[in-house]
């Protein structure tokens, strides 16, 4: 085996993990705070991509990159207010059903509005081309994408760990009732977190548009892998999600590097299986009383 290529594959796999992270972070946030399994997360990612398609002629790619996540975040807040809020205190099975339904409604809505055929989105000229690091070639656009993903990651981390907003959210994850007893209403925080999390999905949608065809089922394609990342990482753990995303990318890259590409997706599920056997709460999952 070509040793250099093998290393390049592992590096590429790691970088690949950052896309999973973008989707999985939001999923994990909503899940941790409200206990909602948001199966519609992928659908918001698709909405982000379609909005990019529609708005780019007016705003250019970089304008869209700012505006679309904000619009999708707004949709997230509305969804939280109208839908999620009714399901915080009931069996998680109900939220699973309602978000599954929402995912289908959105996917079918996109199909109805835009048609099922996949659509092309041209890559912005400024980000075309490749970067050579020695013999390792990488796409300039993907470096940009990873930069954005890291920026989003750092932003979320700072928000959760260095602000009073984050302190309340973290407290809310552990024990919402005590928070209520202290006179702090969690409601606005739940809305804000849903907005941020779903806005991240919208951002991911914009970022993927230049490298994937845009089609109504694109959300369903990505949401399963994102869930696997959240489960491997562990509920309520920020770094767990980051670690799991990179690990998933790495495992996939490794399988392709050793000529077992047919098993590359299956290997991710195997990884989840092994992690759950050894650590049922995920790699870095903390003990959250109300989910035990």
């Amino acid at each position, binding site marked *: 085996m*070509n040793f250099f*290529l093998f290393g*390049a*594959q592992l590096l*590429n*796999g790691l*970088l*690949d993990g950052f*896309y999973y992270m973008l989707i999985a972070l939001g999923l994990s946030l909503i899940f941790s705070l409200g206990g909602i399994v948001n199966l519609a997360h992928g659908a918001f990612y698709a909405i982000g991509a379609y909005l990019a398609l529609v708005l780019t002629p007016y705003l250019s790619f970089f304008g869209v990159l700012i505006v679309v996540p904000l619009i999708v975040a707004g949709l997230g807040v509305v969804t939280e207010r109208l839908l999620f809020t009714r399901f915080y205190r009931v069996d998680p099975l109900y939220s699973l059903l309602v978000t599954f339904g929402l995912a289908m409604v959105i*996917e079918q809505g996109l*199909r109805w509005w835009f*048609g*099922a*055929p*996949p*659509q*092309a*989105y*041209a*890559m912005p000229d400024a980000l075309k*081309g*490749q970067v050579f690091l020695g013999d390792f*070639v*990488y*796409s300039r*656009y*993907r470096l940009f994408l990873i930069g954005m993903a890291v920026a989003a990651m750092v932003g979320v981390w700072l928000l959760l760990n260095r602000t009073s907003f984050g302190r309340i959210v973290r407290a809310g994850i552990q024990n919402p009732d005590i928070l209520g007893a202290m006179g702090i209403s969690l409601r606005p925080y739940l809305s804000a977190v849903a907005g941020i999390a779903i806005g991240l999905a919208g951002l991911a949608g914009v970022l993927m548009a*230049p*490298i*994937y*065809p*845009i*089609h*109504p*089922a694109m959300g369903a*394609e*990505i949401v*399963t892998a994102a869930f696997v990342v959240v489960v491997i990482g562990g509920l309520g753990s920020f770094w767990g999600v980051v670690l799991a995303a990179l690990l998933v990318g790495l495992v*996939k*890259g490794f399988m*392709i*590097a050793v*000529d077992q*590409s*047919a098993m*590359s*997706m*299956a290997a991710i599920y195997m990884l989840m299986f092994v992690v759950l056997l050894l650590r049922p709460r995920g790699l870095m999952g903390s003990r959250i009383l109300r989910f035990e």
Partner: protein
Amino acid sequence: MPTRRHLLATSAVLGCLAVFGPLPALAQDTGPITIGHLTPRTGFLGPLGEYAVMAADLAVEEINAAGGIGGRQIELIKEDSVNPQTASTKAERMIERDNVVAIVGEISSASALTIGQTTERAKKVFINTGANSDALRGADCKKHMFHVETQNAMYVNAEGQHLLNEGMVDGKTWYLLTADYAFGHDLLEGAKAFLERNNGSIAGDDLVPTDATDFSSYLLKIRDAKPDVVVTNLAGTQISSFLKQYDEFGLEPPVAGFGFDTALAWAAGPESFRGTWPTVWTHQVDTERSQAFVKAFTDKYGKPPENQAFGDYVAIHILKQAIEAVGTDGEAITAYLEDPSNTFDVMKNRPGYFNPDNHQLMQEVYTITALPADQATSEWDIFITSDPVPAADQEFETLIQDAVGGTCSFGE
């Protein structure tokens, strides 16, 4: 305990049934002719399924507006086939409950097989409009199953001829990327056999899971393997993803493929679409009927039809011709279709007919070649369509030689 009143009521009901019972049967000969349309409308083949549905609707609308089939209107019952199990259940229901004359549609080779098995038991005709696997025309063939969609071997031969002409086979190395399911495996087998016959060799060969969306790892391997040609046997939106990312990573070897749909070229966009690909039909086919179809479709839906639309449109017209000639009986339609002296206008230069040995519609096919982005004349015309293959002086049968997938015996 049954009373006299009960008895009277029962006999009254029975009497009514006896009197009115035959009526629906009578009505069937003047009422609408029901045809089932079953194709994937969700999932990774859903985008193509939508074209299929639009074209089938258009064909039925045109036929009904012109007076139907022998004065009877066509009623089209449309369903999403979803997956092989659901496809079979829905086919069963269409036959038992809706009493369809025939079923038209499908894209997935796996689902086409289960529908074919269901229609075979009921002795109803199934016209496959989108599934390519050679096995469906070989070991898995069915007496009542016909194929408007070209089989993989036809694409391998058409595309292969192009590659031979371009000097991309003899003494050259290929890197193959293949979708990891029946369609891809079948195509891979055909491609490898073709390569071996023509003195080419394999630089690399990967199976791609159907749920993979990222090709960067494969692109790194291809770059390292330095093949002369990259050949894909991918399907659905994966082809568009692959082409966009191939462009993104700036790889240089020419790209070709044995399976394709023009909608995927459009989804890749003029900047990323490249290479030469086989197809059963494009909106650029320059015959009067094709252009009339393109116009009617574009007027109705605001965009031109692609190859899947062609399949379902032509299939409905073929069925109409058969029912007009022999009526709605499944066996009679089968006998009519499989007689090679019955030809069908398939909107190309030469009329088509079904090969009696494997029920494949013998017809001209084409290759499309990407235009440089600055030469594309519209968002749809980002490629040019070749002359028909085979050339006018060659037999259609040259297209199905060297098919893989076993021999067809119709269970006899």
